[in-house]
């Protein structure tokens, strides 16, 4: 193991390491700690210039109550959910099938199609922006959740297919051959042999895509406009103009907007990290 395990060092080194850890963590998360503190303060603290002292009163529930009951925030959160969940399902479904095709079969153009999916995934969003916006307007889907979902499904399919294909490649191939010898049709092999083995990949992709889509801002601004369809990342800017300079409310709003992916991460940590670090170990 590298660096040398701390258990093998002196007692003093161990204690100072243990003491040092929380300090470094707090410095690392300082900007976030600041926002969390802001979100608990009353309005008066900001007008009195008491930015970094102790809160003069503890207003956590009040501030978050305002965010939930007196603003458009719940609507934006709901929109985010209604955009994110169908996208996760769509992208994972499409890429499962595509990954199966590219991972199991040998045919002409296999690698070419695979590389096309990877390359498309790296492309800058801006080169898609004008045509995709046009297409969405032509389909009468501008400023709708469906419009966003369709695009997200398509774009995320690139990354998901890369992921799925590599995962399926690593499965034991004799299993599929055995099923074929038994005379099982190909789509049944997919459904009953391969799919059950892909559960870890499905979980990893689902949490990753959830986070990516929840956090998307660019496409939300390009393809939607108002509180009817906009997700929370775009909504937070509107929220902020509503509460301009009310830092306690803006902080509370930001924390609420950031929370769902954070919760997702902590609940599904193992899968999340397995997904993100795919390929980091050979």
């Amino acid at each position, binding site marked *: 193991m590298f660096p040398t395990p701390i258990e093998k060092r002196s007692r003093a080194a161990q204690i100072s390491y243990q003491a040092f850890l929380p300090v470094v963590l707090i410095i690392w998360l300082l900007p976030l700690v600041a926002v969390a503190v802001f979100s608990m303060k009353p309005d008066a603290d900001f007008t009195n210039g008491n930015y970094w002292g102790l809160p003069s009163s503890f207003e956590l529930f009040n501030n978050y109550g305002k965010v939930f009951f007196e603003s458009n925030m719940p609507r934006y959160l709901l929109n985010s959910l209604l955009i994110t969940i169908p996208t996760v399902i769509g992208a994972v479904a499409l890429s499962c099938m595509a990954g199966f095709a590219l991972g199991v079969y040998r045919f002409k153009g296999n690698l070419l199609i695979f590389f096309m999916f990877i390359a498309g995934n790296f492309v*800058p969003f801006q080169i898609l922006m004008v045509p995709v916006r046009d297409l969405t307007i032509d389909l009468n889907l501008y400023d709708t959740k469906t419009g966003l979902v369709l695009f997200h499904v398509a774009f995320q399919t690139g990354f998901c297919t890369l992921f799925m294909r590599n995962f399926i490649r690593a499965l034991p191939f004799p299993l599929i051959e055995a099923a074929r010898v038994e005379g099982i049709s190909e789509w049944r092999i997919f459904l009953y042999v391969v799919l059950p083995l892909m559960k870890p990949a499905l979980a990893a992709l689902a949490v990753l895509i959830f986070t990516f889509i929840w*956090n998307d801002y660019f496409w939300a601004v390009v393809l939607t406009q108002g509180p009817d369809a906009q997700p929370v990342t775009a909504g937070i800017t509107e929220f902020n103009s509503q509460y301009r300079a009310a830092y306690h409310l803006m902080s509370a709003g930001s924390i609420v907007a950031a929370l769902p992916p954070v919760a997702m991460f902590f609940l599904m940590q193992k899968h999340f990290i397995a997904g993100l670090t795919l390929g980091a170990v050979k």
Partner: protein
Amino acid sequence: MSFTSTSAPPVERGWYKRNEIAITPWLFLFPAMLFFAVYVIIPIGQSFWISFHQWDGLGEATWVGTDNYERLLTDDRKFTTSFWNNLKWLVLYLLAIPMGLFISLFLNQTVFGIRLYKSLFFFPFVISQVVVGLVFSWFYLPREGLLNAVLALFGAGPVNILGDPTMATYGIIAAGLWPQTAYCMILYLTGLNAVDPEQVEAARLDGARGWKMLWFVILPQLKPATFIAFVVTIIGALRSFDLISVMTNGGPFGSTRVLSFYMFEESLSEFGFRMGYGAAIAVVLFFIMLGFIVYFLWSMYQDEKGGH
């Protein structure tokens, strides 16, 4: 690996049954390819086409040949600023890789509660860039911001990072480095987990330690992690949009624009939609990216050949 039927079919089977192995992959690929073609592949071509036109997004587009590009490359100061800022992003964003490596080395221990520490260090990556941008813009605030409160402790004067054209871009990049470092850290933590302990022990017996050990024994084993860190960091740097849009909206005096932001501004700004010009900027950005994409794909291709 390819399938060959082991025995002659006992009864005459349908055309689909006979060609099942050849057709199935295409059936499985069809939906994904359709979506990807409509929303990704074809739009790239369309953007190239639009970039040769003058178009407000509504009426007829007029063909202007390479006018857009000539204007971009000869007399557009906004473009020049954006381009240089993109370079700053590219270079400075790469700092996330060594920073992530050092944090991962710091955290690669097995003390009580280390798992929680690792997750909390990773935290910034999970938060949306919009929130990261907001958090940092409040952090930088000249009066209310925590940064100046801390600086005041050391007797340093208040700085208005986002209001100063010479510093604003660096301030935004610093904000971007925060989640990106977390990402690189998690890549290296996973990589360090898989480092061969026998090699480390052998090197230790040979007297290697510290920097030498890191450079000659550990880093070569972390190569796959470094490659991925490099890929995601480059892409992240060239995609930077959210932070700029949230923190400065391109200002002050347009000093924080990058190509991706400038393109958005030209195409959909309140000053009228200039889709053709925007598309031309996007094409330039695409070509910058293409260099990296070709390199990434080439590396992956070498891997594929070696692996199978």
